[in-house]
């Protein structure tokens, strides 16, 4: 392989300068004239029938311009990524605590907030349903017309009874994982401006501005082309910002007052009313031979998607597909139920169902190994998927499965190294590991196209018109590095322009560990087209046959070896009114011949990322406190685009997994309110993450990926919690089957 220009290097992201100086403009920082402030009046009950909403006092409050309720919505009242079941403002039914009932628009933030507290909702309470199993029982109230079961998935392969009959040992266990928040630091917020020409401009902090545009247009009964959505700098998203609700409310407010309105959620509102990671209850039954060979898996998952579907049905797909982890299990019987309840809505969050299932299956594997008296790593080695294996979805796994045995070896080495470290006085140390499989893409039969544009500027620099937002993870940097490599230009010459639905191509939603892959593929193709255009223009301007010219490192090279800088060609073409630009669309591949077609929409996923994490913990056996001292994360990315970017995804993902393991749970408190602040909802701090963190990055090329690259965003989260749970068991012999693993669960009082 020849020396790369930028691939695999640690470039400095282009937005770093504005971010370290405070100049970066997040939506709440955008300064416009005559801005009005919105505040949302929200439900203080979990479930109830709305008899009336009295806005008289709020309307009369000083500074208030307008109060809006559902009756003021001119178009569609409900929206939703998969199912339009979520009212922008509650109509006749309140389905969760904190649901928006009205928006107050006022001349100051304080006036709006004060008046929002004066909106009086007369709500007849209904007993709330807060458990996804209970919600599916008989004699319970229906939260939506379709009932409380929104999705059910079932996969059966082989002969489950025969499989258990052949097993020497059978383990049956239950697991549960809590409701957790993506907890991006920038809460949901939006700014909308009604323009004199009857159009609307809306700034969003969103993973999918093009969907926001459609949802806003539908709510307002406007043609989409009259709604311009612009992406500001995004302060983290992690899946939670695949949700248009706040942009819709802000746009509605601006439309109603024919002015400019800003809406910024408080942290409490973010907890109450925006997508969370699904809580799941699992029942597992795993059968194996004496030597550890898996024979049969029966698993049932009950997922709580809360008041609205959000992306719950799609999360259910991945919960189901990852119930068996990274293993070959010949006989399976898997069932997943996605239920509506009166909890805050759950939807997309980094990992998208996989962290939930992995906690269960990766704990199961260690428990089974213990029962058999075998080394849990050897049990894994016996059962891991290999290239060419048929998974229970019918998908034949490709060569990327070759990263599994390597991941296992490296995790084993890390475990051995960690096991030799003595604990601090009074502490007990333990080491554990877990494997991970995370799919890429939205799943079969879900249209998934991403379009980008590359433009060559007259100064010779390249501009990426990125059609999907960089939510902070570094998508723009990845696109620029791939474009630079493909165009044989230095990284410094490639820049990215901000997303604007009125001028950017549609790159689709930033999610599903597929952005480097999709955007990268468009960069590679757009670069080829642009080089061809360059030669065409050079041939025209130089009056030479195109075949006599070639392109190399920012120059057109003639047959005689003369080099002409591209900017000369670009600027001369520009004088003739010709802009050198090219567009490319990449469709996530689900080849019909190799993609099983018998499953429901969104199933199966066909490309995967594998890896492993090993953790060392020190437990205080008296207090039950746990410190994760060491963590080694092994992940295959196909090909590193940005080294620092990949490391950052691993380090951040593992920290999120650590919070899932030990701290985070959005509980319902005794006073009937949800945990809704960082005072009670603890995310890891700099003192909680391991003092030793090691990244081992594998590069087994994904042949359909740009330069062999695939995803890394999500796969880093799921293995952390089971690795920590297994380490804790190995330290003190306590097996905790519900997250988070709090001291109370480790110390018998």
């Amino acid at each position, binding site marked *: 392989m020849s020396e790369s220009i930028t691939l695999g290097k*640690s470039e400095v992201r282009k*937005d770093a300068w504005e971010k*370290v100086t405070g100049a970066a403009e997040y939506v709440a920082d955008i300064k416009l004239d005559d801005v009005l402030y919105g505040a949302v009046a929200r439900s203080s009950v979990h479930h109830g029938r709305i008899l009336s909403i009295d806005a008289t006092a709020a309307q009369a409050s000083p500074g208030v311009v307008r109060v809006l309720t559902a009756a003021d919505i001119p178009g569609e009242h409900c929206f939703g990524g998969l199912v339009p079941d979520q009212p922008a403002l509650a109509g006749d039914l309140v389905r969760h605590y904190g649901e928006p009932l009205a928006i107050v628009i006022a001349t100051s933030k304080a006036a709006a907030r004060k008046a929002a507290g004066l909106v009086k909702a007369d709500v007849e309470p209904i007993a709330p349903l807060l458990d996804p199993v209970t919600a599916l029982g008989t004699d319970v109230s229906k939260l939506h017309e379709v009932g409380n079961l929104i999705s059910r998935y079932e996969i059966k392969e082989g002969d489950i009874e025969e499989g258990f009959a052949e097993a020497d040992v059978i383990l049956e266990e239950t697991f549960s994982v809590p409701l957790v928040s993506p907890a991006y*630091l920038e809460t949901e917020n939006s700014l909308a401006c009604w323009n004199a020409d009857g159009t609307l401009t809306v700034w969003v902090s969103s993973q999918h501005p093009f969907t926001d545009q459609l949802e806003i247009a539908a709510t307002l009964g406007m043609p989409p082309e009259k709604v311009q959505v612009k992406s500001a*700098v*995004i302060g983290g998203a992690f899946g939670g910002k695949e949700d248009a609700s706040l942009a819709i409310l802000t746009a509605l407010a601006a439309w109603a007052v024919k002015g400019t309105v800003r809406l910024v959620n408080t942290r409490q509102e973010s907890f109450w009313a925006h997508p969370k990671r699904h809580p799941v209850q699992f029942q597992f039954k795993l059968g194996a031979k004496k030597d550890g060979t898996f024979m049969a898996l029966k698993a049932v998952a009950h997922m709580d998607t809360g008041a609205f579907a959000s992306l719950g049905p799609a999360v259910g797909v991945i919960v189901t597909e990852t119930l068996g982890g990274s293993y070959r299990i010949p006989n399976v019987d898997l069932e997943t139920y996605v239920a509506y309840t009166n909890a805050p809505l759950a939807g997309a969050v980094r990992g998208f169902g996989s962290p939930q299932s992995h906690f269960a299956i990766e704990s199961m594997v260690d428990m089974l190994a213990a029962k058999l008296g075998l080394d849990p790593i050897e049990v894994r080695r016996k059962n891991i998927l290999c290239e060419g294996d048929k998974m229970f979805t019918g998908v034949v796994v490709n060569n990327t499965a070759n990263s599994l045995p390597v991941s296992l070896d490296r995790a084993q080495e890390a475990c051995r190294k960690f096991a030799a470290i003595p604990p601090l006085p009074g502490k007990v140390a333990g080491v554990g590991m877990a494997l991970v499989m995370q799919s890429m893409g939205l799943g079969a039969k879900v249209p998934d196209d991403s379009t980008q544009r590359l433009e060559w500027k007259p100064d010779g620099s390249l501009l990426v018109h990125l059609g999907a937002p960089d939510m902070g*993870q570094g998508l723009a940097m990845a696109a620029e590095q791939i474009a630079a490599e493909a165009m044989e230009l230095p990284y410094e010459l490639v820049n990215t322009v901000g997303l604007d639905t009125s001028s950017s191509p549609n790159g689709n939603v930033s999610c599903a560990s597929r952005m480097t892959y999709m955007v990268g593929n468009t960069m590679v193709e757009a670069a080829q087209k642009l080089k061809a255009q360059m030669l065409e223009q050079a041939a025209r301007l130089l009056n030479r046959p195109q075949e006599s010219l070639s392109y190399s490192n920012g120059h057109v090279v003639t047959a005689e070896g003369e080099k002409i800088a591209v900017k000369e060609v670009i600027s001369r073409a520009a004088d003739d009114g010709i802009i050198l630009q090219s567009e490319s669309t990449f469709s996530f591949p689900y080849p019909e011949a190799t993609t099983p077609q018998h499953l429901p929409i969104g199933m199966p996923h066909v490309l995967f990322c594998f890896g492993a994490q090993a953790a060392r913990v020190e437990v205080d056996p008296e207090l039950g406190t746990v410190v994760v001292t060491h963590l080694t994360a092994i992940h295959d990315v196909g090909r590193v685009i940005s080294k620092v970017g990949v490391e*950052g995804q691993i*380090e951040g993902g593992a920290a999120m997994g650590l919070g899932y393991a030990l701290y985070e749970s959005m509980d319902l408190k005794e006073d009937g309110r949800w945990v809704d602040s960082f005072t009670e909802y603890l995310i890891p701090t700099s003192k909680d993450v391991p003092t030793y963190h090691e990244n081992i990055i594998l590069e087994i090329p994904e042949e359909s990926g740009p330069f062999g690259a695939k995803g890394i965003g999500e796969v880093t989260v799921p293995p952390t919690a089971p690795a920590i749970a297994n380490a804790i068991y190995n330290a003190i012999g306590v097996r905790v089957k519900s997250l988070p693993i709090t001291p109370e669960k480790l110390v018998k009082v």
Partner: protein
Amino acid sequence: MNSIQVSFEVNGRPVTVDSLPNRTLLDVLREDLGLTGVKDACGGEGECGACTVIMDGKSVNSCMVFIGQVEGCAIETIEGLAKDGELHPLQRAFAETGAVQCGYCTPGAIMAAKALLQENPHPSDEEIREGLSGNLCRCTGYVKMIEAVRCAAEEMSHV
């Protein structure tokens, strides 16, 4: 409620503001002085550190400081850190080590680190962790933030 007049210094420049006394330094910096590099992530509860500024040499959560408390004080925000277009070593280190992802916690974390290095120019890793422990970050897992502070401390000790 009557407004109060408060005079203090921001990034070396004297300012006087008229404000209701129930407003915080964070509110005034963002809304009255346009210093939007100062962020709010926890809703003014002093939990996240995104609004960290330096007040008379000490790092504070500006959401926890009523504007009246600022009378006569010297406030430093992220906007005052770069001099003549030249980034402060901490800013450069955060950018170059990859300590910046979404960037929302970055200004607060840099200001907390600056206060730390003023007090302790040669912190151990443990002391850096302690110094950043009031600044939540959801993107980086802190690994590169700690590295950035270590690099900046080293660079500053050579000056």
